[in-house]
């Protein structure tokens, strides 16, 4: 059809209709052409067949609509045994009891301060932390564990016999014959968790010694796994060990200041910390009572806290100060330790001794 200038006025109906028909069919043809191009391109570029799905597994995903089962075809109420891992203390908790556990774990419950105070009181009497056991006792009573908790709890108790608080409590009561019996315990503690330096290569030793105390115990011949500021051993001892293991060039310990810098809290650190706490109560974090309270105020997010819980210095404080009562009992006793260790160390930091935090709380 030639493109001429035509006027429509002089045409009769049939011609008009024919014109309209022409225009319509041209439009349809153009639209079809467009679709053809789309398909052609999709095939040529290789993405046309992406839509195809895997037929058999599609059947697995069909919705079921029958009484007594949910849409997946599963019977109701079979999920009682689900468990999860607490991000704070790293323990396996029954899912349906996770909320109450977390509340205590973070130190937010009604009884948390009571439990924490109890722990401080008892650990103040002993030199060591065996708070993990105490914590378990409380938790067992609260049924935080899964349905098999009784069995588990009993098992744990028996496992812990060599290190159980009962033992050290009895030690504590006979206050006369101290240093031997009391000091015996840390070695007992470390018995299972110390590191045998003979089995490690030089690189491993080097990296280990950058983070741990490393002093070799006379009794067990194993390396202390506590932090570089562990109160049990002196810096001299630590330097000596490094010279012994790595040669005279490797005798430098990192500065106390750098230790402070590395104290920024992060969730993984907290967990590492907590796991350490349970065995050797590393007190990496001594400085930070003030740091922790600063950290917590920076991070406190609630605008109108319903309950004024002064204890909740913010989760960050667990890493920061151990003083933060953030996580249940473990940190509380640790902070008391921190208080003690602060006195032993050179007073570099303007830190109030830990017990004062609890004074505020009380």
């Amino acid at each position: 059809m030639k493109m001429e200038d035509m006027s429509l006025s002089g045409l009769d109906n049939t011609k008009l209709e024919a014109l309209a028909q022409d225009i319509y069919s041209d439009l349809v043809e153009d639209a079809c052409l467009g679709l053809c191009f789309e398909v052609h391109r999709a095939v040529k570029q290789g993405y046309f067949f992406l839509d195809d799905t895997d037929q058999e597994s599609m059947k697995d995903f069909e919705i079921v609509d029958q009484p007594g089962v949910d849409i997946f075809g599963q019977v109701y109420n079979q999920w009682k045994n689900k468990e999860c891992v607490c991000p704070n203390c790293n323990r396996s908790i029954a899912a349906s009891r996770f909320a109450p556990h977390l509340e205590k774990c973070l130190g937010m419950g009604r009884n948390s301060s009571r439990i924490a105070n109890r722990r401080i009181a008892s650990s103040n009497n002993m030199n060591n932390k065996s708070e993990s056991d105490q914590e378990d006792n409380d938790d067992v009573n609260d049924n935080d564990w899964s349905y098999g908790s009784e069995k588990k709890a009993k098992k744990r108790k028996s496992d812990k016999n060599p290190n159980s608080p009962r033992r050290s409590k009895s030690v504590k009561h006979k206050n006369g014959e101290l240093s031997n019996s009391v000091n015996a315990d840390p070695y007992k503690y470390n018995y299972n968790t110390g590191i045998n330096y003979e089995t490690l290569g030089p690189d491993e030793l080097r990296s280990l010694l950058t983070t741990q105390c490393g002093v070799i115990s006379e009794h067990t011949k194993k390396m202390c796994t506590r932090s570089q500021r562990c109160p049990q051993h002196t810096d001299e001892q630590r330097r000596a060990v490094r010279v012994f293991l790595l040669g005279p060039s490797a005798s430098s310990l990192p500065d106390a200041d750098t230790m402070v810098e590395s104290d920024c809290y992060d969730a993984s650190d907290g967990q590492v910390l907590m796991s350490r706490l349970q065995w050797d109560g590393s007190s990496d974090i001594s400085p930070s009572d003030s740091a922790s309270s600063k950290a917590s105020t920076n991070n406190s997010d609630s605008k109108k806290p319903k309950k004024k819980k002064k204890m909740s210095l913010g989760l960050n404080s667990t890493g920061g100060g151990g003083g933060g009562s953030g996580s249940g009992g473990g940190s509380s006793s640790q902070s008391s330790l921190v208080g003690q260790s602060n006195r032993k160390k050179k007073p570099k930091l303007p830190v109030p001794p830990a017990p004062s935090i609890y004074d505020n709380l009380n």
Partner: protein
Amino acid sequence: MSPAGCSHVNAYKVDNWRQNLRVIYQCFVWSGSAEARRRKVLQNDVRWTALAKSCICHMCGAHLNRLHSCLSCVFFGCFTKKHIHEHAKNKRHNLAIDLLYGGIYCFVCQDYIYDKEMEQIAKEEQRKAWKLQGVGEKYSTWEPTKRELELLRHNPKRRKITTNCTIGLRGLINLGNTCFMNCIVQALTHTPLLRDFFLSDRHKCEMQSNSCLVCEMSQLFQEFYSGHRWPHIPFRLLHLVWTHARHLAGYEQQDAHEFLIAALDVLHRHCKGDTTRDDNGKKANNPNHCSCIIDQIFTGGLQSDVTCQVCHGVSTTIDPFWDISLDLPGSSTPFWPLSPGGDGSTVNGESHLSGATTLTDCLRRFTRPEHLGSSAKIKCGGCHSYQESTKQLTMKKLPIVACFHLKRFEHSAKLRRKITTYVSFPLELDMTPFIASSKESRMNGQYQQTVEVLNNDNKYSLFAVVNHQGTLESGHYTSFIRQHKDQWFKCDDAIITKASIKDVLDSEGYLLFYHKQFLEYE
């Protein structure tokens, strides 16, 4: 060279080929308008104008028949009659362009080819033309890149979400009185825009630690669309929420509405990394102009007009909101007498028994002009003195997702109780009567039934309902959510079952989530 291209284009890609190609696209394929086309043809290259007065086949004069333009010289030929083919053979010009859709044909390969660079030019010219035409940006579907194609080919097992598919639905374990959290999570994960945002991986986390709630939300979507059938345990989510919203922490029953607001607030704060840069390249970090996904979806503007009774001067403030809390009849606050809607008329499709309160009634009450008594005189800017006034609330900006909170828990000085009055709510809701511009017609408190609503902007569809059973002190939350347009599911913690629309509409209703039906580009 992409697999869809061909080697014969290399002969073409010499000298100033890009510019030449652009000219062809601009003049003959996609011009802004016919006017522009004519003008362009006349203004541009003189060489072109002489010959290219009109697009017709140089051999037969046809202007349809799939006209093609030779890329190497000024020649138009129709495809159907093979005139362009002849030209190609005679002149050895191997490439031609289809003037209707811009596809490039190679006569040696005897097929349309898709060369990456040429397609790039074509796309740019097309966008320019759309802009000139006033069409703006057009939606283009996703196309996989070469790498993505490879990955997809190596992983042929694929799940498609059909209408009868459980993917996207998942139960949530109750962690100990956390049913309120589970219901809100179900509502959020079934918010279409939010789902699209997270599934297309739009969150770029800038938080150092692992405690970003938005990342956890993203993870939650992955869990919901994983196809797993056992219920998910949202313990990390609980931990994060307790960390960031201290006032909610604690093992006790909480209010779902409060949780919703707290969750949105934390998400909003953690979204700072995603705020898009505006055209100046500056990051919009202003809290009043946040453009994070939460604000884009949930934030609306509530206009409060205070009119002085003496001088009739109006002072207006606009506050952002994430939800609308509505008083119910039966509460100790006076409920406005019902207007014509109470006689069983079907406003907004709420054709329930006459006398039952409808959501529209509650909204009408919310937006009515309220006379502030003589004890609450406002300082009027016009009169410069304290005068009595009326206050009226209207919606200045409607959010994409509107959440209505029916205030069923009464905590007044005299009593604390739960109001269980049934409120009927519709599947489709039109918010036009409640927006600020409709206010004038309601100044006197008369509600005018809008005869026709031509504007589709204010139409909403229900997609989630959160219900509470029990008393003020203790109860249980369940939710209904909508999936696949018209399928509803009841979510009772870990148990997901199919529900009928009737079940949903007959339920008591505590939190109602509505989604805008038509979304416009800004």
